[in-house]
């Protein structure tokens, strides 16, 4: 049980998660990204409701036009994004699990690792998503990208810090009041902080008349993508850490036996 053992397993879990996340994002997310880009081109082209079809000369992206083809964006580009995010998150989750090892109640290594991944999903992905859900192309005013990016990362930071504080609170409470009360109070404290923060932070509504069904399919695909990323990291890393601990315990048991002879 060394930091190196954790990190190597986390990178491997992240790599596997990145590949599977690519598959889920491609199947569950790309159709609605394409649909949204069609809406975007239709809007940025002619006046309003496609009165003349010769509008879409302003091809998908931004001022200078698209440098990367849609074909590449939806395959190699998407794979780059999910793969590197998977590896980076896998490593970070693994080192957080290494820190949590033996420090959260009496959880065994695989249990504390699974807990870190689950709390990571809630605090890094789920809670920020609920306040500032993913938006497809064509939704969102380019002039507000600065403030929207800041708000998203502020919400993310509040959520992660509140989760760390909640775990520390659990550690303080659980010897005196027992596990049940400690979980109840610390989970309640986390929820109170993020709900208050979400209520105070500005609402972003730049949807306009974007079709509701495409928006929902996109957001469902996005949530499935995030769930796959975190879920696979958590499951693979938990399995690998459990196996590592079992092997080390067996080696230790053999040593102890040999020493006792």
């Amino acid at each position, binding site marked *: *049980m*060394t*930091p*190196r053992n954790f*990190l190597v397993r986390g990178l491997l879990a992240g790599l596997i998660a990145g590949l599977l996340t690519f598959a889920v*994002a491609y199947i569950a997310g790309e159709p609605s*990204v394409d649909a949204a880009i069609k809406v975007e081109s239709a809007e940025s082209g002619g006046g309003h409701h496609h009165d003349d079809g010769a509008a879409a000369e302003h091809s998908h*992206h*931004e001022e*200078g036009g698209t*440098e*990367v083809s849609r074909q*590449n*964006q939806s395959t*190699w*580009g*998407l794979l*780059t*994004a*999910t793969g590197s*995010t998977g*590896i*980076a*998150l896998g*490593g*970070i989750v693994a*080192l957080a699990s*290494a*820190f949590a*090892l*033996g*420090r959260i109640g*009496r*959880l065994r290594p695989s249990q504390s690792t699974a807990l870190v991944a689950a709390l990571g999903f809630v605090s890094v*992905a789920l809670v920020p*998503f609920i306040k*500032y*859900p*993913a*938006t*497809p*192309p064509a939704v*969102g005013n*380019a002039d507000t*990208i*600065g403030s*929207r*990016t*800041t708000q*998203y*990362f502020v919400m993310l930071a509040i959520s992660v810090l509140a989760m760390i504080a909640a775990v520390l609170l659990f550690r303080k409470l659980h*010897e005196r009041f027992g596990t*049940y009360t400690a979980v109840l109070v610390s989970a309640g404290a986390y929820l109170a902080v993020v709900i208050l923060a979400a209520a105070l932070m500005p609402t972003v509504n730049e949807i306009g008349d974007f079709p509701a069904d495409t928006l929902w399919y*996109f957001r469902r*695909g*996005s949530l499935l993508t*995030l769930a796959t*990323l975190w879920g696979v990291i958590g499951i693979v890393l938990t399995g690998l850490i459990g196996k590592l*601990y079992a092997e*080390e315990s067996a080696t230790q048991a053999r040593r102890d036996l040999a020493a006792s002879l």
Partner: protein
Amino acid sequence: MSQVTTATPEIEIPSIPLRELAPWALFFGLIGAFILFFISADQGAVSIPAGTAIHEWVHDGRHLLGFPCH
């Protein structure tokens, strides 16, 4: 209730001293933050380097992973 009782056999749970963990956490934390910055935010709100190539390349992933893209 759920107090720790001395009757349960004590399983020894290993833990890693902070001294040993800190350099790994610092080093990989920086690398991880660097990677996540390029995937999540670069050439959207801030641009290092200027341009749109990185933004365009990771465009679909940025949308689907829930980051504000443009």
